[in-house]
């Protein structure tokens, strides 16, 4: 019954030959995650501000957006962007663009939560002190609230980035040639099952570990001074 030793012959040459393809896939995954992080952060800051605003309707719309995205699988959003939006007249350049659209919609909701908790964690005294020395609301945002908020959310932001990086694997479902797609390609075309999946898994793990340790350095550099 167990014949992995005898029945399966390892052949690493095919995976090694296709390493450039896997690197390209990894690079594309990182690019997708970075873009989603940055544009999603813009949505997130706007969303956090909207959820704290006194306009109930605006706050409710963003609350509904966050709850919707958090309770629906990313795959459904991706398929909706890929299959349904073009029918509604919203056409994307290619599958990468339509994935990225769904992905930004997705990351925006998670980042709204991240920035909302950051905004809530800013000590009351900072804003009061800023008011006391006569800063205008715009100056308070620019010089007090945003910089402090960024330091507070940095750990959560780096966690979100790493999970976004992992979520890019779902792009393979609509044929985006990222890392997981590369593994499926090697598996289906050359039957290099163990080699393909172990190399790709290792690439995900090593990249995530490197990102995590780099981000830890950044977090330490910008830690909130207590």
């Amino acid at each position, binding site marked *: 019954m167990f014949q992995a030793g005898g029945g399966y012959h390892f052949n690493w040459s095919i995976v090694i030959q296709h390493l450039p393809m896997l690197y390209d896939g990894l690079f594309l995954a990182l690019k997708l995650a970075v873009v989603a992080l940055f544009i999603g952060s813009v949505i997130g800051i706007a969303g956090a501000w909207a959820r704290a605003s006194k306009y109930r309707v605006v706050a409710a719309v963003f609350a509904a957006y966050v709850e919707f995205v958090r309770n629906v699988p990313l795959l459904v959003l991706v398929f909706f962007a890929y299959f349904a939006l073009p029918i509604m007249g919203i056409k994307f350049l290619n599958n990468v663009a339509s994935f990225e659209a769904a992905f930004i919609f997705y990351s925006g909701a998670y980042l709204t939560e991240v920035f909302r908790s950051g905004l809530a964690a800013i000590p009351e005294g900072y804003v009061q002190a800023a008011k006391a020395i006569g800063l205008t609301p715009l100056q308070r945002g620019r010089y007090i609230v945003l910089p402090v908020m960024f330091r507070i959310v940095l750990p959560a932001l780096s966690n979100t980035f790493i999970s976004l990086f992992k979520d890019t694997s779902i792009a393979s*479902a609509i044929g985006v040639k990222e890392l997981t797609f590369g593994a499926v390609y090697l598996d289906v075309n050359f039957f290099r099952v163990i080699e393909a999946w172990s190399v790709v898994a290792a690439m995900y793990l090593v990249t*995530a570990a490197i990102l995590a340790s780099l981000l830890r350095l950044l977090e330490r550099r910008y830690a909130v001074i207590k």
Partner: protein
Amino acid sequence: MLTTLLHQGLPQMAQGLLVTVGMGLQASIVGIVIGVLVGVGLLYLPAYVGWIFRVYVDVVRGLPPLVLIFSAYYLIPVSGINVSAFYSGVIALAFFSGAHFAEVVRGGIDSIPQTQTQAAKAIGLRFWPLMRWILLPQAVRRMVPPAINATVEVIKGTSLVSLIGVVELVLATQQFTGSTFIVIPAYGLAAIMYFAVNFSISRLGGVFEKRYAYLQY
């Protein structure tokens, strides 16, 4: 169009939803068992055994669930064992959620102050009585909200098994849109179904969170 959606799509997709929920439940239950064992092991086993659990948790949490699902689906047959696509999905998701539940369990027990353990030892409790009567009753209340979040992640994760051919909600939706070309309302309905299930579960977590908010140290 609406009648086709209601008469053909709704039953087809409800069937898919049942598979989704069934798979989510099975994977979560196995995942919770793994999580409790691994989580307790992480805290109390000596380091020379505990590192295996640490590696398991960190590796699984560092991989996309889709990679786990594809790996399970393609790798299990290589070892000569025949498993249906459904069960390779359950195995992958149980493996995935086990690591997340382990962190929940570890964090929950770890959040109980050391003084509780010290007091229990002072009155002469051994390991199991300490767990059973002192730590777990307090820790479980802490674990419930994050464990419910992890369960929602599992149910969302089941959408990925559509890619290995299990007819759950997403694939049922695709089959319906493929034969009728009713795309937008079908995906809308699928999103509503996922939302209804997951939002109810998340709300349950919120209820527990409020219920146990009095537990503060």
